[in-house]
């Protein structure tokens, strides 16, 4: 692809030092979402499987899985972000700041940043500012000597490939939940596939429609 390089964009919106500010604003929103989830059980900015790890901790188990998963993703993405020029929001901020750090706080008995909305926004902003600053620092030190994307393409490819499994998994899971729900999920998946939409979406909607008519027991 030909890119035109006639001029390097200037000003605040393209500035290096503005980046930590954008990360701070986004992180404030994400941490606020985790606060909503903690208090009202809705609104966490992450995939079900990742939120389920935090939920496992909240349900009285250990926060270890959420903390370790979130922290290591954050770590990996903060290393990778400045090297490839794109910080992965999902791994670094949604999983790291939104799940990993709250799990660390909760396992240490700190609940205030999650129960108070203003404090959640401030906590998220401070964390984001720090992460953004670290990324700009790494960038300053490495960008000139590095000539590698550090396998970002491989990871993104694997991430996308893994996502494709979700649709069939939902259909199988629905079939194991109950016969009507399974039939609904199968039809929904087929309809969505026909219209070239993600299978997972159709499977979920089909399962829920049939589940509303033929409820499954709570056990």
């Amino acid at each position: 692809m030909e890119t035109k390089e006639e001029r390097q964009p200037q000003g605040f919106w393209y500035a290096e030092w503005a980046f930590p500010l954008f990360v701070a604003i986004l992180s404030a929103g994400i941490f606020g979402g985790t606060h909503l989830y903690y208090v009202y059980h809705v609104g966490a900015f992450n995939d079900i499987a990742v939120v389920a790890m935090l939920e496992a901790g909240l349900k009285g188990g250990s926060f270890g899985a959420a903390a370790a998963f979130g922290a290591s993703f954050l770590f990996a993405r903060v290393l990778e972000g400045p090297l490839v020029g794109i910080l992965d929001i999902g791994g670094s901020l949604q999983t790291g700041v939104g799940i990993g750090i709250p799990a660390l706080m909760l396992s240490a008995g700190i609940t205030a940043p999650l129960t108070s909305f203003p404090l959640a926004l401030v906590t998220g902003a401070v964390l984001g500012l720090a992460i953004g600053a670290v990324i700009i620092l790494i960038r300053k030190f490495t960008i000139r000597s590095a000539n590698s994307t550090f396998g970002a393409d491989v990871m993104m490819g694997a991430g996308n490939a893994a996502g494709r499994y979700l649709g069939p998994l939902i259909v199988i899971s629905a079939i194991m939940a109950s016969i009507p729900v399974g039939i609904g999920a199968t039809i929904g998946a087929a309809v969505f596939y026909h219209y070239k939409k993600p299978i997972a979406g159709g499977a979920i909607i089909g399962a829920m429609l049939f589940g509303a008519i033929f409820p499954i027991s709570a056990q």
Partner: protein
Amino acid sequence: MDTWIIVVESLIIGALAGFGVGAGAARMFHAPKVQGMGAFRTFGELNACAGDPISHFSFGLGFLFNSWASVVGAGALTQDVEHRILPNWAAAVLLAKNQNVAETLHNPKKMAFAGAAVGAVVVTLLNSTAAAIPVSMQLVATKVLVPAANWLINPIMPIVFWMAAIDAGQRTGLWGTVLGGLSHLIMGNAVPGIVLGILIGKGVDDSGWNRITKTMVTAVVLLFVLSGFFRGFDAALLHSIQLDVPQWLIDLHKMFGSVVE
């Protein structure tokens, strides 16, 4: 009452998140000169929609259904909100008025404000409808989605990432395998380890053992040692090979507030 608090807080949260996502997404088009924020798939998908407002809108809409079902089922918005819906809908809003991507999609200022507006609406819509959904519907979604998502995280994702590491070359395969196995032992999931293995393997493939790759390996070793310690892996390992945990180790754990036997 709760619903009102959720609506008000969601408006603020959505605006903040949308602002950051919009600015970060527009900056991706100027990477690597400018540090962007988003994801490679987000970048690719934005390019795939080729500045056509209808394409950007319908691409986001497809994922809105997934997110909606997910938030109803488990209170989780899914990463698609920030990776797909917000950037594509912000782009669609801007492109509806002006089809020139250089002045819209690639402009962090315009994308930030469009993102904030879209974010406030989308996040509030998702969070408030989820709270209003009857329990029986939530039960179905949870019963279906949670097991499926658990299977995805383990074992599907570890296997897919592992295969990708192996296919990417001998060195990434070796690092991915070793760190993946260790990561599954210590952190409970192989994916973070495999990702780090690919990072190291590809880094060494492309630029050799220099200051950056050596620092990375040191940091990774440190990460594994620390998370192993804080998860009590050392004590669990001694137990499983039928050895007693020495008192000094128990005391060391106690110093950091964790109890091991």
